């Protein structure tokens, strides 16, 4: 009996402004319209705010008005399906990639991917990263056959744009400078302890970690990286990855 009340209330909240299910309420109509508008503003406004706090650099890059309009459209097609707002916007990068008004900012979707990875790393499960000493104990002939499990916080974001440099400049981590060469950057996002840290990766390293994340053995991942990037150096890549705290365990 009561369910249609909730359906109509919710549908009017998410519908374009102007929808007002007046028969659900009692009292002075103009006062009620004001009250209903407050709920509508809360719902959309708080979701935009949730996205703005999860994607601060994206917000900075496009500015307040553009971000609000873009976020409102995203919310319209992809309203949250869970109260876990820390995860809300995992689909924003794909949305931005197809968002016509953002076409003039071609790197925007990749910056969103980087911020998604950073936020996921921030909330990922805590675990001590695998220490180099643990691998040192493995007999040399078995080493290449190992499969490494990535640390819960570790993410690799590959991009044809200098996303980490852009991110750093927009957070104050790097001074502003004109970019002469817009070279792509592959980024390793890690959180071995409490702080999320980003590292630049060579193309071979990025491919190697990606392959390890797909549960290939060390030798398979190394072969894949070397096939595409003959200069890939396994030892150097492993030292960097272990220092960054990218691995959890091996088997």
């Amino acid at each position, binding site marked *: 009996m009561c369910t249609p009340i909730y359906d109509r209330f919710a549908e009017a909240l998410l519908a374009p402004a102007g929808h007002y299910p007046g028969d659900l309420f009692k009292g002075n109509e103009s006062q009620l319209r004001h009250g209903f508008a407050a709920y509508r503003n809360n719902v959309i406004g708080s979701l935009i705010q949730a996205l703005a706090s999860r994607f601060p650099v994206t917000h900075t890059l496009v500015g307040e008005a553009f971000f609000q309009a873009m976020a409102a459209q995203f919310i319209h097609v992809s309203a949250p399906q*869970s109260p876990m707002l820390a995860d809300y916007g995992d689909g924003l990068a794909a949305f931005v990639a197809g968002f016509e008004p953002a076409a003039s900012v071609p790197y925007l979707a990749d910056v969103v991917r980087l911020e998604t990875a950073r936020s996921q790393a921030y909330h*990922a499960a805590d675990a001590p990263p695998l220490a180099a000493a643990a691998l040192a104990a493995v007999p040399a002939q078995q080493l290449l056959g190992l499969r490494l499990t990535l640390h819960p916080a570790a993410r690799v974001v590959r991009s044809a744009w200098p996303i980490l440099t852009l991110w750093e400049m927009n957070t104050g981590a790097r001074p502003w400078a004109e970019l002469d060469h817009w070279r792509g950057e592959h980024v390793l996002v890690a959180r071995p302890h409490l702080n999320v840290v980003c590292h630049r990766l060579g193309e071979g390293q990025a491919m190697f970690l990606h392959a390890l994340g797909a549960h290939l053995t060390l030798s398979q991942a190394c072969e894949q990286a070397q096939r595409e990037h003959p200069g890939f150096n396994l030892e150097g890549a492993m030292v960097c990855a272990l220092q960054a705290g990218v691995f959890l365990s091996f088997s």
Partner: protein
Amino acid sequence: MPCLRLPDDAGAAFKPEHFSHIDQARQPVGFFEIHAENYMGAGGPPHARLGRLSEDYALSVHGVALSLGGPGPLDTEHLGRLKALCDRYQPESVSEHLAWSRHGSTYLNDLLPLPYNATTLARVVGHVSHLQEALGRTVLLENPSTYVRMAHSDMHETDFLAEVARQSGCGLLLDLNNVQVCAANHGFDPYQYLARFPLHAVAQVHLAGHALSVDDHGHTLVLDSHDRPVTDSGWALYETLIERHGPLPTLVEWDASIPAWPCLLREVRQAQAILARYRRRNP
């Protein structure tokens, strides 16, 4: 069911921006309250801070997303997250809202109003009972702030809350700012609301500030904004409550335009001064 309690002291909403200040020295607050949903990630800094906090202070876990007033069954996945959080930190108090926030699978991220009648009463009692069974403890249900009155209501809000408490065995969280907001928006006297409220079931009080919104037609609406200090009339209402009931765990809430920690602490101390005036000398 076990009924843990917060101390009859004033506490503060915990905001991460205050952590370094709070972590430097023991703060003179009775407890901290967190929004449950902000601590449902797997790990990271939020849990590190909460872990530290819960070592030194009593903790109140305040849920905002369970949609206890909604038509459908509870979101069992979300209920599982709340249970995991409570199992991990063993808070002295767990509370939620008399409101709904979910439509089908869509989460609306606001505390929406429900009509008060026999049908919704049975449903809320069912949801609160489900929650209490899942957590294995009693919870507190908070009176809402509302901006519209529902046409299908035929019960007074205070009677509705009294019945939910009686039938489910839950306690109540009396949010005095919500009383002020509703009184202003719906034109009633907050003292009369207080006089009707089932005070015997109240186990916690919330204090906060509210904002005024004026629309194009000059209509005013009071918003439950939690972005400014408690008003003088809010303090007066609080003192009346404590005089009538005696000391209660009392939270000073802030959720936007967060002030520096000393400002928030000043409001906590103001509440503590009122509590001290009505503390019995020989407990």
